[in-house]
């Protein structure tokens, strides 16, 4: 982000550099955040709200351009992207010249505002701040008085340098080495849906009920959900094939609290919870213990620092630096098409409990976080909690629904009420 005050362009952050090269019809690197309000959305007010908040979020008010060696962002002179009626198959790939050059799309449907964000712009936290600030501004335009907090930011404030910094560059200073890459894992998906079809299944759970359950077990929400996914996939694999591969859940974690960062760009790394079914049969409680210990160990700040330093070193490799962009893109594309998601069975990304300003809470129904469907992952889950409602959203491009069914009926069996919403019917 150096030079951003002097010029209208800035570099992509370390995590963001990989995404433009991976951007294909089948793997879009776009995720969706939806905020559901009490009343139906007025598209004109929403459009005005987008225009109002964009100057406050310069990292979103950009278009992506090609340099000779790297992509870069520059301020988008377009004003604001259009506000569109929602579609059934969100998170389709971004075209850099469409949508006025903006790398996020704003949709509305009934009482829901949805923003599809290209991952090069921000991670889930950064996008959540943008979307909730947009919802807060929209509510203000409807005549509601809404105050500010860390998620619904004051749009009259000037964007701070810390919000726009590349925290990877700022904090990566480890001498440790982390081995990147991993072994092949089990994949549950079998029958692909037709192109441009996405299955979305959201389960809405009362967070207080779920919280009481995880508190009694002494684990976090992410650990519990990851263990549940592992359990389902291990059993599914045992029924399907003789050769048992590792089952691995990929879990992006937010580094902001660990490194005291306030960036609205990418600052996450992916941890892995892995079980080798060949070791023997695991009970659900044993899986909870495994996931808990694996994640606690991997979340050590020094290990995380070594991870981000390794990623940064890969980007700063002198040979890679002087390689022309089209060759980098080709390499990323070919490499990714061969190895995509082969080391992960499923993805679980938890935004956590999002705090809203007190005067905004009565107007917000729920928050939905949806990752883009993967190439091989039959389950990619996004979790977001607001106002005691936890929304767990599956998105995939496979016709089977057995993982979703096992997942949500698990809560029913534990006496936790689940409401299902889907784009299927």
């Amino acid at each position, binding site marked *: 982000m150096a030079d951003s005050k002097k010029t209208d362009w800035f570099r992509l952050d370390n995590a963001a550099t990989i995404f433009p090269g991976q951007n294909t019809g089948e793997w879009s690197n776009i995720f969706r955040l939806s905020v559901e309000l009490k009343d139906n959305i007025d598209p004109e007010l929403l459009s005005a709200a987008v225009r109002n908040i964009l100057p406050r979020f310069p990292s979103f008010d950009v278009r992506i351009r090609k340099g000779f060696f790297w992509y870069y962002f520059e301020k988008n002179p377009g004003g604001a992207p259009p506000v569109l*009626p929602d579609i059934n198959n969100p998170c389709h790939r971004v075209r850099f010249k469409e949508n006025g050059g903006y790398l996020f799309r704003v949709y509305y449907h009934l009482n829901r505002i949805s923003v599809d964000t290209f991952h090069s712009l921000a991670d889930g936290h950064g996008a959540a701040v943008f979307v909730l600030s947009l919802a807060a501004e929209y509510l203000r335009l409807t005549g509601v008085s809404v105050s500010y907090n860390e998620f619904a930011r004051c749009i009259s404030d000037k964007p701070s340098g810390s919000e726009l910094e590349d925290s990877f560059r700022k904090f990566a200073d480890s001498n440790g080495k982390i081995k990147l890459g991993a072994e092949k894992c089990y994949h549950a998906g079998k029958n692909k849906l037709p192109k441009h079809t996405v299955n979305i299944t959201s389960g809405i759970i009362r967070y207080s009920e779920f919280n009481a359950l995880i508190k009694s077990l002494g684990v976090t929400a992410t650990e519990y959900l990851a263990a549940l996914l592992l359990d389902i996939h291990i059993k599914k694999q045992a029924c399907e094939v003789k050769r048992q591969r590792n089952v691995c859940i990929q879990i992006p974690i937010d580094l902001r609290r660990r490194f005291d960062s306030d960036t609205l760009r990418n600052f996450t790394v992916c941890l892995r919870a892995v079980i080798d079914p060949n070791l023997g049969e695991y009970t659900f409680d044993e899986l909870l213990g495994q996931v808990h210990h694996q994640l606690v160990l991997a979340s050590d700040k020094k290990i995380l620092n070594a991870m981000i330093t390794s990623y940064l070193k890969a980007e700063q490799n002198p040979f890679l630096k002087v390689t022309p962009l089209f060759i980098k893109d080709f390499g990323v594309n070919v490499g990714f098409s061969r190895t995509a998601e082969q080391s992960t069975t499923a993805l679980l990304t938890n935004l956590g409990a999002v705090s809203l300003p007190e005067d905004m809470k009565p107007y917000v129904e729920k928050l939905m976080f949806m990752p883009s469907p993967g190439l091989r992952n039959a389950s990619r889950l996004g979790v977001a909690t607001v106002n005691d409602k936890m929304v767990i959203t599956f998105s995939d491009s496979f016709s089977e629904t057995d993982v979703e069914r096992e997942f949500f009926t698990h809560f029913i069996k534990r006496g936790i009420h689940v409401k299902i919403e889907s784009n299927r*019917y």
Partner: protein
Amino acid sequence: MSYCVKCGVELDDTAKKCPLCNTAVYMPNADISSNEDQAPFSQVKMIPMDAKKEFIASVITVLLAIPMIVCGIVNLFYRKDGLWSVYVITSVLLFWVIVILPFYLKKIRPYLMWFIDTAAVLVYVYVFFPLRNENANYYLTVALPIIAAVSLCVLIFIKWARGKERHWSSVIIHLAIDIAVISAVTGIISLYYSVVWGAVASIIVFLSVLSLMAFGIYCNRSAKVRAWLEKKFFI
């Protein structure tokens, strides 16, 4: 408020089936169809434009440009025996306008393409034939009427086809009529100028499309034949 009897989960009021197990929702007193527009997700599916389309079109454009440039240079500087390169350049340009240009359009615009293609063919024929020292009158008396007939038939076909979804047998009949009209116009012009081979060819085409038209009309009227053909030749 409805629940899935198999999964035990609460379902959205607009759900007709449980998304998890496909079990039908039975709500005797509820009219689900009346609140379909209240479904939690939009039913409009967005089909993104295929990026490769433009890329492939650009590659073909570059490939087509190479022989044009080479022929132009050779004709101008090395083999100055007439403007023979114009044949190559105009032919390639015509191919580009008719085949490649539509790939660059974000949305298919049949009337726009009809207009551009007609204009391109008129210009092409206007440039091409005088260079071959053909009779200058040829353009007005022969080429223009034939191009006008073809263009008019295409315009009528576009208008007809865009009205509503047509059955393939109707499409066959319509295409046959178009070809018959064009061959009739060509035949009349050939007879007028006493071009025997042109008149004979036109009559052969005309009679062939008449039989095709008869086949289309027969299929269109007989549901049994249509069903049999669709069963045997489905794609």
